[in-house]
């Protein structure tokens, strides 16, 4: 099957694979994701009500307060975090959420950003995605059409 390879900047290491969940809207973790369910809880986001649990979560960039990192960390503590995060541009707030999940709960959730192609155009919800956060390489297998 055809795969598409994207190359980006490795932010947090680790190798995982899973199903993509793509949000074209920026995501706000503080008050915008409910840690006990992992569901997006933000009326401004089209994916409102969808769970990020175990997904390869793709979104442009984060918005919101400096407590983003601890809201993410709490979602990981509940076991409801995404398997990986792919952004156009990641900020430290997002990186720290994943780094602390590793330090405290031994959860590996790689993060990659700044890709050579726009991940929001290449990846669609339901695609199978392999993420190598050590090298910044992402392999996308498109879901079967129809």
């Amino acid at each position, binding site marked *: 099957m055809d795969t598409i390879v994207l190359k980006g900047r490795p932010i947090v290491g680790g190798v995982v694979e899973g199903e993509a969940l793509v949000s074209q809207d920026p995501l706000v973790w503080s008050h915008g994701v409910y*840690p006990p369910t992992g569901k997006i809880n933000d009326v401004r986001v089209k994916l409102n009500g969808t769970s990020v649990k175990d997904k390869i979560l793709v979104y442009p960039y984060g918005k919101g307060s*400096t407590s983003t990192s601890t809201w993410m960390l*709490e979602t990981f503590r509940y076991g409801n975090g995404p398997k990986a995060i792919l952004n156009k541009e990641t900020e430290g707030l997002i*990186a*720290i959420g994943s780094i602390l999940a590793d330090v*405290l709960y031994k959860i590996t959730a790689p993060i990659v950003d700044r890709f050579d192609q726009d991940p929001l155009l290449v990846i669609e919800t339901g695609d199978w995605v392999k993420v190598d956060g050590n090298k910044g390489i992402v392999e996308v297998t498109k879901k079967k059409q129809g």
Partner: protein
Amino acid sequence: MAVKLNKEEEAMLRGDHGEAPKIAMEVLMRLATAFGAEEFVPVSSVQAMAHYGSLHDAGLEWLEKLAALGGQCCVPTTQDPASVPLDKWESLGFDGAYAAKQKRLAQAIKELGEVLTWSCTPFNVGSIPRFGDNVAWAESSAVSYANSVIGARTNRTPAGLAICAAIAGRIPKERLYLDENRTATVKVNIDAGTLSTLDYNTIGIMLGKFAGTRIPALTGIPNTASSDQLKYLGASAASSGSVALYHILGVTPEAFDRDPFKGNKPAEEVTWTRQDLAAAEQALTTKNPGEIEHVVVGCPHYSIWELKTLAKLVAGKKLKKNKEFWVYTPFETESLAQRMGVLDVLKEAGIQILASNCLVISPYPRSHKTLMTDSGKFASYLPSEHHIELVYGSIENCVKAVTE
């Protein structure tokens, strides 16, 4: 590119100073590597977070772990307000189980050696950086004040990372710690005549929406703007956008006698008139307010001068029946108000002081439907967070709405 480390940083990473500095330094190292920092900068102060409303159980476990490992802040470290008023949560009807979590956080940061100011305005309670100082502050309004008004340097330090900077005494040198990243890129001209304190809130809200994450420089703001007014401008801009640094020509230190654009042309320039401000002010009141039942002010925390001004406004007045009036301020400022007789006047009028707390990061233990505030940041956050209607107006109008 590898991060350059000095001997002390290498020693911390090896664990020579103990387990907590080792873990803190490892987290900082991972961040430095990810974002391509070439080295670390020492910080002269840290403003961290220890409020349960944002830290949750995970943040509590993180701070308790570092405390149990003997972690100690090596620079003066304050923290944001708590998620309940620490001295009167019970009488005000906050949930006991929730307050117990907040108390565990308080215990952890006490063990870590933090300075327990519990305020979003550390600059009003003794933590004042110098011009050019590197600090690691977390609260977005305090970050804006430190960068813009004082000319100190800090990024929006993530919750959970600030404590690492406090224990290790340093932070990766990237973004706003570097000269070249502090240049203004967009210009805002204020052409609205004399500005009230509410105007500074409104301009801040407009500024955040316009600038987003870009660095704006403003003209048309007088150098007589007070510390409180600039506090509101920055807090509002950080709540409607992600503005961590703004410049005001002829006012703020990095634009006082030098060009904040460093010779470059602004990427975008706008002018806001009195009409623009009036429209933005109106839009901050929600669509269907009912009768105002509760006034909440002190976001960011009220200064002593604001408490004194409020006392003048309410002297001889009383809250109307079934109305409430809450003021958020630091413990130190409440104590100062007590000494000055200001607190007695406020209490006499029926005003409640909630020291060490903030409604943005705490539960709302009331069932009132319509609140009023003089704060742009409260106006940004409270309607969605507590599902209430909100009226936005000056402190004079707040007082008029609920007193007789």
